[in-house]
């Protein structure tokens, strides 16, 4: 095991096969290092599984198990049940994409939470089935282009709305459920650390851009992720037992166009009057989020501006080696 | 003493035909016999006709098929005589015990080699305030056939109803004794 870097664990080490600019690779590396070595990771089928394990090779330096697409939360339930009452302090972490969380994995996730398993479920949300080549999922935002929600003479992209996954999870008497973003590392770090201090089922929803599927510059992933938060389309919030207990205040309000224009998957919205109507819908969705969570006037420790500067100003507060995160 | 005895219970869902078969097999086991009991289950709900089967033998029982040639049939609900072929396959000299007030009568006009009518509902209501005819008829079968003993029946009934308290156990023991007496008196012909 390569643990030569004294500053980070490298739970997910280099040499894996992710695309350049992959938001999920960034997010999984952050989450894995913050959680530390005393954990067992269960992975759903998806990009993360595919690009980290290949034939007899593995980029994981933590115990890692993959079974099938839909069952990660149930497999983790079994791992956790097997560890119950035994000596050892390792924790259980589930990793899945939005398909393995919002759609095919939702039933197992619901069961895992309802039964109160002591496990952290991390959803790396890139808003479509990227592993199979960009098909729409229950997480794909309204009006986005995917290969199965293509714009056309009769279509402006995905007709339906993105599921409110956090609300679905929070409705399970959930001890802790939060959203985070690869663009706001200090916030993500605080949330992972908080989640790992708690017991019982916990849920972390990490916004993870996909340059390939979203059709943006591979160097722009963090910028795109930041704009999703700053426009109000992806609010950074925390819920405990269903109640909102933390909100990242927006330092400034950005129009959704600033976010959408960077991505080819929304290009068709800028062509004609139909697209303009959809843009108004998307702005309305962002406005609704801003009202719902009080994103402009929340009383918070820091806002998006400060959090962004904190990240850019230093090494980002990575966990010391061997997971002092707990 | 015996080779193989086969018994078929006919009842309606909720009357205890399945429990009666299980209890009979437990009593036979208690008496040192090989025994087997199983229901012809269904998606039956309360009130639908159900069957259950018992085999008792002094040698290991290998077959798991249903009982087609019973040495006795026990009918927990006399209305089944109108709709179900409860006597089918009954052996020569076979015994039919029916939960009934008067002389049992098949809609088809068939008669059993030996009929025994037992007022099981009435006896059950007297002791339990509920028509639960299975234990009465079980004991009557034991009394009439001698295939299992009353002490063995009392042992398994005590065990079976143990969780429900001494009063329920006591009432069921009373029922057993009365059923056994009726069976011994009526079934000896």
């Amino acid at each position, binding site marked *: 095991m390569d643990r030569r870097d004294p500053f980070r664990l490298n739970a997910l080490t280099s040499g894996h096969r992710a695309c350049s600019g992959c938001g999920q690779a960034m997010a999984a590396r952050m989450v894995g290092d913050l959680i530390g070595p005393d954990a067992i990771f269960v992975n759903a089928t998806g990009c993360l*599984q595919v690009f980290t394990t290949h*034939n007899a090779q593995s980029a994981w330096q933590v115990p890692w*198990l993959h079974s099938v697409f839909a069952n990660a939360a149930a497999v983790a339930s*079994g791992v956790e*049940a097997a560890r119950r009452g035994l000596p050892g302090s390792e924790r259980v972490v589930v990793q899945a994409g939005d398909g393995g969380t919002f759609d095919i994995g939702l*039933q197992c996730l619901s069961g895992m939470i309802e*039964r109160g398993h002591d496990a952290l479920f991390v959803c790396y949300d890139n808003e479509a089935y990227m592993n199979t080549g960009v098909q729409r999922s229950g997480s794909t935002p309204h009006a986005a282009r995917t290969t199965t929600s293509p714009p056309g003479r009769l279509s402006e992209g995905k007709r339906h709305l993105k599921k409110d996954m956090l609300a679905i999870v929070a409705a399970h008497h959930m001890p802790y459920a939060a959203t985070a973003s690869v663009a706001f590392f200090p916030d993500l770090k605080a949330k992972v650390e908080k989640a790992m201090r708690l017991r019982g089922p916990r849920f972390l929803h990490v916004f993870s851009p996909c340059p390939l599927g979203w059709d943006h510059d591979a160097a722009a992933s963090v910028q795109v992720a930041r704009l999703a938060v700053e426009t109000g389309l992806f609010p950074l919030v925390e819920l405990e037992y269903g109640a909102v207990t933390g909100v990242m205040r927006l330092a400034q309000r950005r129009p959704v166009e600033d976010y959408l224009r960077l991505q080819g998957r929304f290009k068709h919205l800028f062509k004609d009057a139909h697209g303009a109507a959809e843009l108004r819908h998307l702005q309305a969705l962002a406005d609704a989020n801003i009202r719902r969570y009080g994103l402009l006037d929340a009383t918070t420790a820091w806002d998006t501006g400060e959090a962004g500067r904190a990240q850019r100003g230093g090494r980002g507060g990575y966990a010391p080696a061997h997971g002092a995160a707990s | 003493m015996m080779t193989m005895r086969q018994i078929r219970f006919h009842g309606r869902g909720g009357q205890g035909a399945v429990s009666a078969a299980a209890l009979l097999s437990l009593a036979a086991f208690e008496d040192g016999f090989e025994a087997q009991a199983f229901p012809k289950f269904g998606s039956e709900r309360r009130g639908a006709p159900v069957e259950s089967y018992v085999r008792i033998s002094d040698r290991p029982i290998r077959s798991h098929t*249903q009982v087609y040639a019973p040495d006795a049939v026990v009918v927990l609900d006399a209305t089944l005589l109108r709709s179900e072929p409860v006597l089918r396959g009954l052996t020569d000299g076979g015994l039919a015990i029916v939960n009934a007030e008067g002389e049992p009568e098949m809609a088809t006009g068939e008669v059993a080699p030996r009929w025994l009518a037992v007022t099981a509902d009435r006896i059950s209501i007297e002791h339990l305030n509920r028509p639960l005819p299975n234990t009465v008829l079980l004991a009557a079968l034991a009394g009439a056939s001698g295939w299992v003993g009353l002490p063995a029946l009392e042992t398994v009934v005590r065990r079976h109803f143990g969780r429900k308290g001494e009063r329920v156990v006591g009432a069921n023991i009373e029922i057993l004794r009365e059923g056994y007496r009726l069976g011994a008196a009526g079934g000896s012909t």
Partner: protein
Amino acid sequence: MRRQLEGSRAVAEAVRLCRPRVIAAYPITPQTHIVEHLSQMVADGELAAECINTESEFAAASVALGAVAAGARAYTASAAQGLLLMTEVLFNIAGLRLPVVMTCANRAVGAPINIFNDHQDSLSLRDAGWIQLYVESNQEAVDSMIQAYRIAEACELPVMVCMDGFFLTHTFEPVELPEQAQVDAWLPPLRFSRALDPVAPATLGGGSEPDNYLEYRRAQHQALDHAADEIVSTAAAFQSTFGRTHGALIDGYRLDDAERVLITLGSVMGAVRDTVDALRERGERVGALKLRCVRPFPAAGLVHALRGARRVAVLEKAISAGAGGIIAAELRAAMHAAGIALPVDGFVGGLGGRDLTPASIEAVFAASAAAGPAPIGCQFVDVDAADEAARPGE
């Protein structure tokens, strides 16, 4: 101790004796009583296990998978639709070479929906990479459950013990239950070498490509092949400790000098034995053979056991629709490969809980007294005469 127990209770007692640490299941008739009994044992403190009541069979199999991967002995049970809902995970457990043990309370597969017994559910999963044992009695169910854990853990392969729904699960009959100390000595705690462990982090279930997938599958096939030896030696070891055997891969009955042999699996074997005795008394040279192990398929053992037979009938409670009996086809292939021209009559019956009566078993024996080649495909036992008249020529 010898006790008069319902089959489901007997199996639950056997599972308890094996000390699983994790039990995961979703209720389905006729499996329910097994997990109800286990839940009660855990509630009463008689079994130190985690009972995980999952939201589906798919999740139940997944929980068992995760538990074994984390080093715990695990148990699950299902039937019919539930077993098929597990399908993806069952293949996965086998591919990961995890020693999960489960009971299949065999039940017909819908549509039309039917809660009663046949073998369509588990036989449909014969290619999943699981060892499959079919039992004749509740005593065999108990003994096979204990053997199953030892076989599974020795071979790092999952084992499915298949017992007939209702015919066994709901039948009270005597069973001899071993003492806990005996089982503890015979079945040591699970030591799973590949268990997930932060001290020695390993990756389980990574991706594979065309350049090595075939080798994985070949290794799995070879492991199943080799498991036959383990099944035989485990049955022998069980007999020497507990004094009982039900056969290992196959169990012949009065095969010496038998010219006609009926092969079947599951609980109907008991009535077949009775029928063989009755026909023998009439001077017919018949015998029977119970196929206890369907995977690995004991081709060599069957060829050897049937070397003296002139004609064989296979009576099975499942069908590969559009092809015929499953076991009959595999037996024909085994005989052909061995260069033996043995007519094999394929009979399909007892589907959806239809009782295979002593008369139906005799009829199968009678039909197999025919001369000439056996018809390809299958013949149906006890088909409703009215239905036969309405669809002639089948």
